[in-house]
């Protein structure tokens, strides 16, 4: 791609969208917690123009290229100039179609979350300095996406880990453990990235992503790739580095979950994956195979875990992992179709998953319950929440004509297309395809549980005072739901050609699919169905209580929809695996923790506090040194 020189007029804008939110966040720290609403409104005042400017950057079709943040700064002082000499190289940023798209999405989610939080984050949720961290997250995400220099990227990446840690309130043992786990895993990925960056610097003499094109031919180059891959997996939440997400979302406020693990972390993780797979490294076929295997196993394993969850936030958390599998698979294919599918799915996922978390937050706000077993029949009480939740649920399950279907369909096509070319991973395309489709079916299965559990059935007695949430909380959901529908309906005519083809290149669909036509057909069939229903059946419709195995139906009985899924967890082989999973046998965090603590025990045994032993160590150390060197 030939770079057109970046218009210097835009440099201040770019600098501003990164640093204004960060600085505003830092300033907001100073103000007391009592004026939380004021802080929220200030955040809103900042987030809205930031969205406008990120759209502005996105809309400049011809603007692309590299520039250093320092170029825009002119300092009169000679001393400071001398100090800053040489910094420019480390502040390189890169604007291309991919980073422009992600920039827009970040700006969008930033605004949505701030609006939702205005009402949602009240005293009871009391996270200290919620808005400052939200703003710092916003600015740092822009920084990470636009950074070309890997060190600049890592810095922003690390700041995001800290804000993620601070956006969950550690009010009890479980939540503080979740916060700790989150920062350990993301921080570890940050550290590993340093190793990769060091190696890249060593072998290619540059750490600007746009200047790199590294072949993965020998062990050390593969190592560099794998460290960066782990970083992106840890952020996005692919197996086996996903385990922080379910714990985090279970305990964090829904707006934090919707903000970081559901949208921004996904955007950034997958963005970085796309960068390293397509720009920084040239993958060999074995690496492709590894990525695809991780992708499909993420889909299946996480959705299996989601099926048995009772806590609806945790259920959403496992889905947030499972969907990453599709993106990883799509990007792992490396073909234009696959990349488009992966990125499109990333965008769609951010839309519906943050929407789902906002739905979950609304339910929690009004009912105060976190378990699917404790809620039911909210559809009448919270109609907008129900409808938007339904759209999101259908979308994530890949039901046409919604956006989730459009992107999954693109990925399926990509896999079929991928099978036509030679390669190890290519030969096995049918396996990848079938697993991806099964994963989608299981997603539907678990979302039926969520929708029917929360919204359908008989409303419980204690929930009868539940009302719809206020406008600041339903408006973001409605916007997200409308976009979900819109992106689905206009996928092939508008969204893919306008947005994604400039990023990944043109391609030919394997199968025929025109989203708008199909949507029209679906719409017509639904309308016809309603007409038939109204015309013929309305009088004969019979209302009765549900059939509960012949027993008398008691008013207070509700169906715990989770019961239906016991079949899976009771199945012998699965029950064993599930039990082990609950005991954290497969959690990389707990595994490594146990290993390290084992070492710790062994070494601690030697430190028994006996002075003469310590003196002996010293002499022994001295003698060993002498023996070796003299």
């Amino acid at each position, binding site marked *: 791609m030939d770079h057109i020189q970046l218009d210097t007029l835009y440099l201040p804008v770019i600098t501003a969208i990164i640093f204004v939110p960060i600085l505003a966040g830092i300033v907001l720290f100073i103000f007391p917690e009592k004026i939380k609403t004021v802080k929220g409104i200030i955040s809103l005042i900042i987030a809205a123009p930031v969205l406008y400017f990120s759209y502005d950057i996105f809309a400049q079709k011809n603007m692309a290229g590299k520039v250093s943040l320092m170029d825009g700064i002119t300092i009169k002082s000679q001393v400071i100039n*001398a*100090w*800053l*000499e*040489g*910094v420019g190289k480390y502040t390189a940023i890169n604007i291309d179609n991919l980073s422009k798209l992600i920039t827009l999405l970040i700006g969008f989610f930033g605004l949505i979350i701030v609006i939702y939080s205005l009402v949602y984050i009240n005293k009871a949720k009391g996270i*200290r300095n919620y808005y400052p961290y939200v703003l710092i997250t916003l600015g740092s995400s822009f920084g990470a996406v636009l950074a070309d220099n890997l*060190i600049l990227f*890592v*810095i922003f*990446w*690390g*700041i995001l*880990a*800290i804000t993620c840690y601070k956006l969950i309130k*550690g*009010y*009890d*043992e479980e*939540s*503080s453990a979740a916060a*700790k786990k989150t*920062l*350990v895993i993301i*921080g*570890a990925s*940050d*550290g*590993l990235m*340093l*190793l990769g*960056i*060091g*190696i890249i*610097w*060593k072998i290619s003499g540059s750490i600007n992503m746009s200047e790199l094109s590294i072949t993965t031919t020998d062990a*050390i180059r593969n190592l560099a790739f794998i460290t960066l891959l782990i970083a992106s997996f840890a952020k996005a939440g692919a197996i086996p580095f996903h385990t922080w997400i379910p714990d985090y979302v279970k305990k964090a406020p829904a707006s934090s979950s919707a903000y970081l693990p559901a949208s921004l972390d996904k955007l950034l993780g997958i963005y970085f994956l796309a960068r390293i797979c397509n720009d920084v490294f040239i993958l060999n076929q074995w690496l492709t195979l590894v990525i695809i295997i991780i992708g499909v196993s993420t889909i299946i394993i996480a959705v299996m875990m989601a099926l048995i969850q009772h806590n609806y936030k945790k259920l959403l958390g496992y889905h947030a992992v499972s969907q990453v599998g599709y993106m990883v698979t799509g990007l792992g294919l490396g073909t234009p179709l696959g990349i488009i599918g992966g990125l499109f799915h990333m965008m769609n996922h951010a839309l519906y998953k943050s929407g789902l978390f906002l739905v979950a937050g609304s339910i929690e706000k009004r009912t105060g319950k976190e378990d699917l077993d404790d809620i039911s029949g909210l559809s009448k009480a919270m109609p907008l929440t129900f409808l938007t939740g339904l759209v999101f649920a259908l979308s994530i399950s890949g039901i046409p004509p919604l956006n989730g279907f459009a992107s999954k369909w693109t990925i399926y096509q990509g896999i079929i297309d991928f099978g036509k070319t030679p390669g190890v991973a290519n030969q096995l395309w049918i396996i990848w395809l079938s697993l991806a489709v099964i994963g989608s079916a299981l997603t539907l299965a678990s979302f039926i549980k969520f929708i029917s559990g929360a919204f359908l059935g008989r409303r419980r007695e204690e929930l009868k005072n539940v009302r719809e949430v206020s406008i600041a909380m339903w408006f973001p959901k409605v916007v997200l739901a409308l976009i979900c529908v819109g992106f689905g309906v206009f996928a092939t005519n508008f969204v893919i050609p306008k947005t994604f083809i400039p990023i990944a290149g043109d391609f030919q669909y394997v199968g025929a699919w025109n989203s708008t036509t199909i949507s029209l057909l679906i719409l017509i069939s639904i309308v016809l169905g309603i007409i038939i229903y109204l015309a013929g059946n309305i009088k004969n419709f019979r209302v009765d209580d549900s059939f509960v195995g012949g027993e008398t139906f008691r008013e207070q009985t509700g169906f715990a929809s989770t019961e239906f899924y016991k079949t899976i967890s009771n199945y012998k082989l699965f029950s064993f695996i599930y039990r082990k999973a609950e005991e954290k046998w497969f959690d990389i965090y707990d595994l490594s*923790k146990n290993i*390290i*603590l084992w*070492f*710790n*025990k062994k*070494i*601690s045994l030697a*430190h028994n506090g006996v*002075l003469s*032993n*310590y*003196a002996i*160590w*010293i002499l*022994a*150390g*001295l003698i060993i*040194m*002498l023996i*070796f*060197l*003299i």
Partner: protein
Amino acid sequence: MIMEPLIPLYVILPLGAAFLIPVIGRLIKGFQKTITSLVFLFLLGLSIKFIISGINEPLSYRIGGWEPVAGIPIAIYFILDGLSIFMLCIVNLIAFLSGFYAISYIKKFTAENNFYALFSLMVAGMNGVILTGDLFNLFVFLEIAVIASYALVAFGIEKEELEASFKYQVLGGLASLLILFSIGLLYWNTKTLNIADIATIVKTGAYNKILIFSQLVLLAGFGLKAAIIPFHAWLPDAHSSAPSPISSMLSGVLIKAIGIYAIIRLFFNMFAISHEVALTLTTLGVLSMVIGSLLAIGQWDIKRMLAYSSISQVGYIIMGIGIGLLILTTNGNKTIAALSIFGGLFHLVNHAVFKGLLFLSAGAVEHRTGIRDLNKLGGLSGKMPITSSSSLIASLAISGIPPFNGFFSKLVIIIAAIQGQFYWLAGIAIVISIITLAYFLKLQKNTFYGDVKNKIDNIKEVPFTMCFSMIVLAILCVCLSLLIIPGIREAVIEPVVNTLINKANYLLILSEI
């Protein structure tokens, strides 16, 4: 050679304060606090002035004004070059902040005069070690510093403190013995005690087994002071038992001033180092780094955890410097060696700041709750916002999370290790950094997160002087990151690296004798 009359102030002022405090402190209330704070603030300002004006060649001061006889230096020289001013700045910074912090903290002890007198004496010793150009004089100042620290560790005079101090004295005595023994050997071999003079003789001398022997004995002795594994066993007890401002001095600067500084100064500027010794030093550094952190992660006492973590972080510093030394001894790329040494020194100043801060905030927690056991603490973030946020900043900094200073020094060390093709060391450094993150988050989780335990329900933030020191250090944790900027690095740390790499620079002090 340029004479600089202000140099002796670094020793005279704290030493004078140490003697005046027991005398005048009885008569004038608050004298001890004021005088120590003023002295260290003044010395800090003086150091900053020297750094800003830039020291291109070493400045010196001849004690007693003794003229050299027949080209042989007789007087004891105080030498101020890039490395020493760098160390002095760190020492006096932490000394000022710890002393200021102690104003409120030490109220619970009875003998405030003794505390400040010992404190000043310890700093005088450290400043002396850093400045002196004479090997035996170095030993004397070292003893002044450590004997003051023995007393300070035992300051609480409970069973635990006395036991720790006793262990510290026995093992410290062993170290002094080794150091003195080695100095004796060197004197016997070279007939001089002036470091620069020894350096010229050692340089011309052929391979000498006695020299290697004395190098290793010195390494063991100073290694004990710096708490490098396997010479570390005294540290966890001593550093956790001392009053918190003292812990912060011990972990933050004492082990560096009399341990690492002495090793660096003697091994770079005095001895002609062989590859094997460089390898030994690096190995010891890596061992400390790994074992220290593996020990720290299982601790449930806040200050013990911090003490073990000091061992691990000292390992990083030694590793960075050791890699530089290895590259120099194999005639590798000097730029990479300089980068690696820069990383080590950068980590040294960073560690002084964040470990000092961590001990101060642990002290603040202990001050208010009286508890050091992580199992019994919890939920303090709401009650002590300043302590909790400064402790969090320090924890993230020491674990190498951007944008704090620890990240950048680790970055430099890792990049230098990879550039020098020590891939394994880079890998180990990263794994240890992850473990560090894990145990510091354990500390955060158990102290500041979670439920508020009943017993500690009724507490508030610590008084102003304690908060002030913690806030300043927390700000430094962020601002020291700026040292990574090439221009600032050249102005501040590059002179230090140059003193180490260009041995000839140090020998300049002999030039005009």
